[in-house]
C-alpha cells in the first residue's frame, strides 16, 4: 500500500531533530556553514542536505509568528521529475510505497531540466551532475521502520503511514486547527505523498510550499520527452 507523510507545521517547534536524523541515517556530511543572521542553516537544500527546516518571522494580523516549514521531497503521485527524465534506471517510483527514488544514474540526466520540472524546487546536483533528495528512508520503510525524521520528531509534527490513514489524520487535524486558524489548509494533498498542514497562507512559509505550476496532466515538455524516450532508448541500444 502506498505510504505518505503528514507534516503538521502547527506542531513543529523547529528543534531540527529531523534535519540531523536525516543526515545521520544517510550518513551525509555536514556542510561548512556560517551564521547568516538566522537560525536556519544550511541556507538551502543541497546534494548533502535532503531535509531543511525553513524559518520565517512574519507579522500576521498584528501578531508576530515564527513559521517553521520542515521541507523535503513531496514524493509526487505523478512526479514530473521522473516523467521528465523518462529513465527508470535513474528516477523511478517504488510501486509498494510510492517513494520517488533517485539512483546514481541520475548523473547522465540534464540537471536543469529535472530541477526545473520539479514544482517544489527539490532536487539538487553534486558537482558531477548526480542528483539527490529525500528517499523516504526506503531502506527503513521496507524493513518496517519509520523514516528517520519521523522517528525522531518529539512533538508529533512528523507522521508517516499508509496514505489513506495519513489523509484521514490530516483532514481531521485540519478541522481542529481551523478552529484557531481559519485559513489553515492542506497543501496539494491529492497530488503528493508528503502532505503539509499550514496555519496561514502557505506562500508565507516558503516560496515553493505549494506546487508552482501543477497540472493534472503533464507539461508539453514532459509529453515530448515521453514520446521521445522509446526512440532514445532504441537509438542507445543500437549504439
Amino acid at each position, binding site marked *: 500500500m502506498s505510504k505518505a507523510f503528514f507534516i503538521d507545521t502547527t*506542531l513543529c*517547534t*523547529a*528543534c*531540527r*531533530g529531523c*534535519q*540531523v536524523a536525516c*543526515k*545521520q541515517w544517510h550518513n551525509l*556530511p*555536514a*556542510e*561548512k*556553514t*556560517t*551564521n*547568516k*543572521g*538566522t*537560525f536556519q*542553516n*544550511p541556507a538551502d537544500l543541497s546534494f548533502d542536505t535532503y531535509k531543511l527546516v525553513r524559518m520565517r*518571522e512574519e*507579522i500576521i494580523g498584528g501578531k*508576530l*509568528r*515564527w*513559521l*517553521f516549514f520542515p521541507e523535503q521531497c513531496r514524493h509526487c503521485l505523478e512526479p514530473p521529475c521522473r516523467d521528465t527524465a523518462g529513465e527508470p534506471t535513474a528516477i523511478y517510483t517504488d510501486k509498494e510505497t510510492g517513494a520517488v527514488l533517485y539512483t546514481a544514474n541520475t548523473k547522465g540526466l540534464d540537471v536543469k531540466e529535472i530541477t526545473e520540472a520539479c514544482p517544489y524546487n527539490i532536487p539538487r546536483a553534486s558537482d558531477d551532475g548526480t542528483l539527490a533528495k529525500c528517499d523516504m528512508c526506503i531502506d527503513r520503510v521496507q524493513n518496517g521502520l519509520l523514516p528517520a525524521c519521523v522517528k525522531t520528531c*518529539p*512533538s*508529533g509534527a512528523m507522521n508517516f503511514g499508509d496514505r489513506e490513514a495519513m489523509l484521514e489524520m490530516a483532514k481531521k487535524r485540519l478541522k*481542529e486547527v481551523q478552529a484557531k486558524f481559519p485559513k489553515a489548509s492542506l497543501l496539494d494533498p491529492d497530488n503528493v505523498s508528503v502532505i503539509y498542514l499550514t496555519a496561514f497562507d502557505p506562500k508565507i512559509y516558503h516560496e515553493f510550499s505549494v506546487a508552482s505550476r501543477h497540472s493534472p496532466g503533464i507539461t508539453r515538455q514532459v509529453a515530448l520527452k515521453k514520446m521521445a524516450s522509446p526512440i532514445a532508448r532504441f537509438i542507445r541500444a543500437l549504439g
Partner: protein
Amino acid sequence: MTNHWIDVKNADVILIMGSNAAENHPISFRWITEAQKNGSTLISVDPRFTRSSSKADIYAPLRSGTDIAFLGGMIKYILENKLYFKEYVVNYTNASFIVNDAFGFSDGLFTGYDEKKRSYDKSKWAFETDEKGIPKKDPSLKHPRCVFTLLKKHYDRYTLKRVSDVTGTTESQLLEVYKAYSATGKPDKAATIMYAMGWTQHTVGVQYIRAMCMIQLLLGNMGIAGGGVNAMRGESNVQGSTDHALLFHILPGYLPTPAASIPSLAVYNEKNTPKSGDPRSANWWQNRPKYITSFLKSVFGDKATAENDFGYNWLPKIDDGKPYSWLDLFDAMYDGKIKGLFAWGMNPACSGANANKTRKAMAKLDWMVNVNLFDNETGSFWRGPGMDPANIKTEVFMLPACVSVEKEGSITNSGRWMQWRYEGPKPLGNSRPDGDIIMELGLKLKELYAKGGVFPDAIANLKWDYLTNHKYDPHKVAKEINGYWLKDKTIGEVTYKAGSLVPSFALLQADGSTSSGNWLYTASYTDKGNMAARRGQEDAPNKIGLYPGFAWCWPVNRRIIYNRASCNPKGQPYNEKRWVVKWDAEGKKWVGDVPDGPWPPMQNPDGSQREDGRYAFIMVKEGHAQIYGPGLNDGPFPEHYEPLECPIEKNLFGKQRINPAAPVYSADVDAFATCDARFPFVATTFRLSEHWQTGLMTRPQPWLLELQPQMFVEISEELAKLKGFKNGERVKVSSARGSVECTTIVTKRFKPFKISGTVVHEVGVPWHFGWRWPESGKEESANLLTPSTGDPNTRIPESKAFMVNVAKI
C-alpha cells in the same frame, strides 16, 4: 518537579516562564501539544520570542530580571478579584497563621536587616504561637497580622502601572496573562508552571519560584493533576545529583551538612529535627535522626557504632555560616587559597559566571584533574586566549570518562523518576565509567591514609566495598543507596532479616539496625528487584498518566507530591475527572497515586474532625504550605529588586535597588556597571536545542555545528537601526568583565522595552560556545560577560540579567 513530564497533558493552562521548553526540553512538547489539542491555553513569558513562544496562545515579553514584579502583579490581581480557591487556601496553606508583631516591611527592607553582614535576623519573621508552640490561626483570614492580610498589604503596591513600568510588559499584556492563568482558581481547573534557569539564575532566583508557589497555592494548583511547580532540570540527571548531594549544604537526601559548631550526633539531631506540638501535623522531618544514622551506617559500615556516634565526627564539617558554592570556591581559588581541583564532568572555563575570573583562578592551582569525555576549555585553560603557558605552573591530568551509553546505572529525571540504563557499546579506548574512576581513587586514598596523614579516620573507615570482580558494580551502589537491614528486626508481626533490603523509608531506624545511602531512595531496590528497571506500560486506575509500573519515582513511587491537597478535607477529590487520590472509607485506605502518608483525611464524611487525620503538607513542620515563607535568607515574601547590573537608577518598588542579602564579591575582576553609559543594554543568556551545556559534546559534532556554527547576539530591528548593524555581521559584545565576538541576528523577536517612560534595549546571547571548537577559536563563552553574584539562598550566579554594550568591530 512536584509533578512529572506526562502530567503536563492534564493542565488547562500551561505557563512557560523562565524557561524555553521547545528549545531546551523538546520532548516536553509532546505533552504540551497533547494538552493544547485538548483545548488548554499555552502562555509564554520571555524577554525574547522563542521557539516556545511560537507555539503559544499568549505571548508576553518582559525585561530580564523583573519576574517578581510580573508575578507580584498577578498575586494582587488574584486577591483583588477574589479568584483564589478559598477552601484550599484556608485548609492547606498558612494564610490563616498569625505573624509576630516583630515582622515588618518598609522601603524595600524586611525587619531584622544587618547592613554590615548583608543578612537578616529571621527570628523577627516568626509566627505567633500558643503555649504548645502551635501557630495561632484566624480561619476567617481577617486578622490584621494574619498571613493573608499581610500578603494583601505587601502586594498592594504591585499596581498594573508600576508593574508595567518596571517589566516593560504593557498593561494589556499583563492583564491577558493574569486573566488566563488565574481562571484556574476553580476546584476543577489546573494550571502548571514550567520553569528552568531563566528563574534560578538571578540574585532573586529563589524568590521568583516562591512567588509562583504562592500563586499556585492561592489557586489551589498544588498536589493536583496538571498542576504543581515544575522545575525542568538542565541535564538528564541534575535531579539525581541534587538528591545525592552535589551541593555543599546538604548530605544525600537533603540532610543538612554538619557545621563545625555541632560536636555530636545528638546535637546535630537536636538542631536539625523540627518539633511540632500539633498532633495533626505529620512533620515528616521528625524522622531525620533515622535518616542520618542510616546514612552514617551506609558510609562507615561496621566501623559506625553507637559508641562512636556512628562515625558522625568523621564527616566533613563546614564552618558555621560559610558558603562553599561555585562562586565562593572560585573566589577562594582566585585568592590562591585552593591548590587542587577535580573538574569532573564539568567545564568551568565556560560554564561559570565571570569566566575570565574562573580561568585566571585556575592558573593559581598546583594541580587539576580533568575528568571528561574530551579535552575541553578547562583542561586546556593554560593555552587558551590571553594565557601565557610559560607562566602557568598548574599541572593538568586528563582522565577520560566513557559516555553515558557505555555504562550501566541510573539517572533521575526532572519528574523524580529513577530510570535504570544498561551498558550499550563497551567504553572506547582507555575511557572508563565515572564509578570505576571514583572507586579506584577511593581505594588509593585508603591505601595512602593507611600509612598516615592528617585525620586518616574519615577515609580509612569508609566502607567502600562496591566492587565485583575488581570493578565498580552499579547494582551494589544502588542497593547501598536503598539500604539494608543490618540486624534481624521484628516490627509488628513482620521480622526483617539482616542482610535483606529495606522495603520503605518508613522502616529506617535510628539505632543503627538499618543502613541507607539516601532515605529518599529507600524502596527503589528491594528484595523484589530493581524498581528503576521496571518498564510497565499500564496506567493507574485514575488514568491520568501516572504509569506507576514504569521506572520508580521518589518518594515511595509517589508520582504527584502533596497529593492529599487534591482532595477536600473529607478525602474526596476536588476534580473527579482528573483525580489523583481519594479516600476509600470502607477499605480505610487511599486509592490512586501513592498518597502523602497513610493517615486518613482530616474529616469524616459528615464533616466532623478526625483526630487521626493529618494536614496535607507533611514536609512542613506546621503541615501547611507556605504562602508566607519565614525560612529564606531574603524575606518571607518575594519583593522586586533590580538585578545587580540594571538600566535604571531607582527601584520603583522601594529604596533598595538590589537584593539586600545578595552576595557581592570584591576581587579586582569582580567589576560591575549599573546605569553606566558604557554598558547601556540589558543582556541575558540562553540555550539552543542544537547545542548542549558548554557545547563539549555538541561543538565537535559536525552535524550540530552545521545548524548553529557560531556565537551570535540577538538584537531587535530597532537597536540594529540605532547602531547601524546589518544582519549577520560580526560585532563585539562587552560587559564590565569581558567581551565576546558575535554574529548579529537582527530579529523581530526582540523588541525594545518602555521602562518608566524610557526606551530600554535588551540583547541575548547563547552560552554554548568556547574557544576549543569550532577550530577558528573565535567562538567564545557568553560567561566571559556574566557577573559574580547570585542568589542569597542558593548562590546560583546571576547569568540571566546583566548590562552590556554592542559595538562594531
